[in-house]
């Protein structure tokens, strides 16, 4: 078991050093639910989420105006 313990500690140290101390990024692959991220609306800053549109088919465009 010792090598496994060593590997575990090494992995933990590496994951902390490389930033995996944070939750994994949302997986936007086909078949996955789109994350219920709550963001401000462009017009007025009210809270919005994709969950507000359940029951409707949605085309979501992630973009920038530049």
């Amino acid at each position, binding site marked *: 078991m010792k090598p496994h313990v060593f590997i575990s500690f090494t992995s933990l140290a590496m994951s*902390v*050093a*490389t*930033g995996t*101390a*944070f*939750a994994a*990024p*949302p997986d*936007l*692959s*086909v*078949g*996955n*639910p*789109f*994350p*219920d*991220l*709550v*963001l*401000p*609306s*462009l*017009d007025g*800053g009210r*809270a*919005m*989420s*994709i*969950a*507000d*549109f*359940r*029951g*409707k*088919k*949605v*085309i*979501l*465009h*992630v*973009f*920038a*105006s*530049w």
Partner: protein
Amino acid sequence: MHVPGWHKATAEWQKQGKLQMLGIIQEQHPNRCRLFMQWKKMNWPIMVDSLDLLEVSVVPITLAIDEHGIIRHRLRRPNVKWLEENFLSKTYEGPPIAAESRAAPPVMDTLRQQAQRKNTPEAWRKYADALATWAPAKQLDEAIKSYDRALSRVPNDGWTHFRLAVAYRKRFDSPYRKTDDFQKAVDQWAKALDIDPNNYIWRRRIQQYGPRLTKPYPFYDWVPQARKEVRARGEVPVKLAVEPGGAEFARPQRHFQTTGAEQKEPDPKARIIRDKTLIQTEVTVVPPVIEPGRTARVHVVFRPNTQKKAHWNNESGRSVLWINPPAGWKVDDRLQTLPNAPNAPKAVSRETRTAEFEVKAPDSAEAGTIELPAYALYYVCEDAGGKCLYRRQDVSIKLRVGD
């Protein structure tokens, strides 16, 4: 998205209740997108994700999401007929759809208490994200401190560096700005990009403000055309909170070009009296570290000191910035005019002015810091209606040279 028939078809499907168009923008200054939407007559709901909480590394991304919230297609080039047959006409199985629920913003007190109790990088970053997204600008100080707390434990997390940069740039654009906020933003964006050079969003943020040799395209050159067309329709264009600067209009270049080599130095014997209090200056260099043989764009901001009630005097002549590059270094234009703000009052004004120029390091530049001597000459008044003076200010521009 320039696909023939796409806008017409999606507008019709929305009218029929078959489809909802939504957007998420990955942009530092979101209300520029409001102008864009007005210009393009697109009126669907848009969510603002300046911090990139979605953690995408590229835009644009177009997703077809079913009525249960499941991603069904990633559309590379949207096709009206294909979408109708393969998405809109289908019925998808999924969990029961809950009654309509309205999203609510996070509760800051709860997130702060969680961060203090757990004291983990994740909890601090979550609190910082909420502050930087939702709180008034005066709380950006706390957002920045919270990102710093997260980074003190996990120094190599690119996302946290990127978001810290966004917070610094937000504070720079606010009345709560602190010295060097823009440079700190650029430093953090550069750190993020160093950690992951393949993140397109991070790269674009540096390119937005950076030199022309590294630009893929001009970022906001559409703004004047959008305003013109919106006005021609009889509408009032959306007012931008932060006007795009020179770097954001600049066109890409393939070769570094210099102009003004014949220009005459305006105060070669340094005889003009120095100003040390009326106009405050701030320098930002993008990218923060120049490699030998490469270029950087230097932004010099000039702000009349509000405590001294200083004003620009617009009736006496133009204000300029002169740059004296050290041997081997090249500057695209050594004599820069400090442009008036577009709507500045005629006689005196108090707007922030920015001069931007580009500098090229010699191939033989050694690693370290080098000073680029420069000075500004301007007409400034001590108060509106008060004494007006012609003054010089020596501007300290320090360039960091990498290996």
